[in-house]
């Protein structure tokens, strides 16, 4: 099947039900998207599918066929950060960092829809993203500062 990841088209030969997560990680070597739970409980595998944040562990490869997928590698790069990544670095959010690809992808999708979210709106949208290190207060702060960057841009 044909998958478009970060603007590049990839031909992959996998089972229809292989989760997009494992196509990304083990077939295409895009390891920025993380495996945490496999059952949509942690959000570490969050990517954008046609602009919507999805848990890639729950997206069958076949249903991603033809869709436009963005992963953390496509959101921004160390040399050219997305506003959310910039805010994450400025707020020094990460500890172990393993959940942060997913947190950042979820936050970017939130700010695409709402560039001035309240704490409550942040909590609702980010509620599916688990952080075992407990960086939640910084995630909230970073979403607010990313929102300000986006509004000013």
């Amino acid at each position: 099947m044909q998958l478009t990841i970060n603007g590049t088209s990839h031909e992959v030969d996998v089972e229809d039900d292989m989760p997009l997560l494992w196509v990304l990680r083990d077939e295409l070597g895009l390891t920025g998207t993380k495996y945490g739970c496999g059952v949509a409980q942690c959000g570490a595998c969050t990517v954008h599918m046609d602009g919507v944040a999805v848990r890639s562990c729950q997206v069958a490869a076949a249903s991603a066929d033809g869709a436009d997928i963005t992963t953390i590698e496509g959101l921004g790069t160390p040399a050219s950060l997305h506003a959310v990544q910039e805010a994450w670095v400025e707020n020094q959010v990460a500890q172990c960092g393993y959940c942060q690809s997913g947190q950042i992808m979820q936050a970017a999708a939130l700010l695409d829809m709402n560039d001035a979210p309240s704490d409550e709106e942040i909590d609702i949208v980010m509620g599916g993203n688990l952080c075992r290190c407990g960086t939640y207060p910084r995630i909230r702060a970073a979403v607010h500062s990313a929102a300000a960057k986006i509004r000013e841009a």
Partner: protein
Amino acid sequence: MGRLRTITRRSFLVGSVAIGGAVAFGTYRAFAPSENPNEENLASGSATFNPWVVIDSDKITLIATHADKGQGVQSAQAALIAEELDVELDQVEISFGVPSAAYANGGMGDAMAGIPLYEYNASVERTRGFVNGALRAVLPMMATGGSSAMPDVFDKLRNAGATARETLKLAASQVSGVPVDQLKTAKGAVILPDGSELSYTSLAGTAAEIEPVRFVQLRQPSEWRILGKSHGRTDMLPKCTGTLEYGIDFEIENMVHATVKTNPNKGAAMKSFDAAEARQMRGIQDVFEITNGVAVIANNTWRAIKAANTISFEWEKPSYPLEQAEHWKVLEEAIGKEEHLNAEAREVGDVETAEGTEVKGDYRSPYVAHAPLEPLTATILVTDDRVDIWTGHQVQQMVETVVAEISGVDAENVHLHNMFIGGSFGHRLEFDYIRQAAEIATKLKGTPVKLTYSREEDFAQDFPRHITIGRGIGKHKDGKVVSMNVDICGASVMASQMGRMGMNLPMPDTQLHEGAWDYPMLNLNNNRVRSFRVNNLAPTSSWRSVGAAPNVFIYDTMLDETIHAAGADPMLERIRLMGHGQSVKVLETAAEMCSWNGHKVGPNTGRGVAYGFSFGVPVATVVQVTNTPAGIKLDEVWVAADVGVVIDPNNLDNLATGGTVFGLGHAINCEITYADGVAQQENYYDHEAMRIWQCPPIHFKALENMEKVRGFGEPPVPPAAPALGNAIFAATGQRLREMPFNKFVDFV
């Protein structure tokens, strides 16, 4: 200097023996600098000044060997070196280095000297110094744990940076002819009086020929450029761009993907398995038996996990009780019994005869999983004469020892490449996944294997925090607490961990009273803490803050109950009883931060304070909750702690918040329970801890009054749970004596 230095040392050794015989040799050994593992394979023209600094013609490499599982210790180690070396953090590469006795942890002995860490004077420090020295001599082991990294490296790494800097100045003097005392250093270069610069990299070749300077006066904190200031973590940008390579991300050519399923009745054997279906599935290359279970080899992790889930098993039952209720019963029967006595850890006055009104409480702290978000994983290549293993681990040399035993390759030819770890909380102190990876790769000699646990396997095979019960009698008189008598009985976590390494625990398990025996109640005339030990429950392991988590919950809650019964103020009475200056200050700071005195909370709202002393750090935590129709809501939290020296205020704040969230979240809703020998919790949906919508604002203030620098990965955890329980009591009148609290109250 690699080559030169080796030769110098050899001649010195020969010379010493020839001149003074064994005595001189012994003296030399005692004062010898550690072996420098960088000397092996050092390129010509490269300089390695000590085990922590390597400079060659195009880069400066700092070796930071403490494992980074999220606490930011790689950055902190680099900052300590860079401060004295006069380089900026963006000018260097940082490496986890190679396992070597040169990096043995010298910071763990403080806690093993049997003296509470709040006691500090010259004689006590001598004893600690002796214990640290003996530990290094007997067991020169690298380890990241016990919040010991900062005590271990604070002087060592600054000295490494300073001596390298002074050696580079000697090299610059040689090159320029300018006397050393006229040279300055900054930003990776030696600066000559005329303002021209000689970069460190350009001096590497010359420096390599100079015997490194050994002793340098370290700079005063007032002179620091990087330390003590928020310098930004070096791993932050890669972690925010998905470009940081964790162990689970490692790839190597021809690598196969493996997963395992082993007996969830921990430690028990596998009777039989049927993998007929698995073998037929797409991408499956092999299925074979390993110790207590099965390995599945595939060309993709998901295929391996999917196939493993089709295998049917017959398991042997474990040696521990099958049902959770039995586990509690074992502890209930052992507490207070002479034959289970682990230690009479604290005995002041006479708690039996002290006069006062009694308050009694029984407490429980459950098994809790580590469940770091990165599942256990290791990539390994075994050949006939060499093994390479890429994984994150906290006890680096032991990984090589364990792999050597299984692979049959000499330990000196086993090479651990330590990786960033996506959380540990103690799980990466364990060796099961290392053993399994080695077992699989030895069978598949010549093929690199990446072993990845499924989340379910990670939960099923975790060795959780040990279960603990407490039984306390507090007494109060005339509005004051006059006696605390606390018995603690737990499954021995130290015996369990050491048992898996083939060792016995030849002494009391100090984790069974840590945090309770050293709760500094210096003004309490009657105070007794006894610990009781059970060995044969389910296997357990160090869980962030280890014994202090259950013990501070038990001791502080008992204290809170007695204070309330006395009608005293929970903050003021703790301060009155404490008597340890820095701890008093920590409590006073927390009180000030939340305006404890005179603050009136609204209806159904309550505040609880708790104090915890662990790993040498006094911490005071205040939690405010409101009892709403939807359940208990966490409103706000204030934390004050004294770490002696703050290395990076911003990272310290992150650790304070994270540790508090960790303590609160698990106290609210996490436990591992056994049914028919198997852990009942399989994934995060039944062991969730805290989510962002439950997380209150958390305020933190750091103090620096303690005498020595301490680590902060663990200390914020223990007081969080009792502070929450005490707050819930203040808001509702309901006393919670057992975690997790959601068994008794609802949370928003």
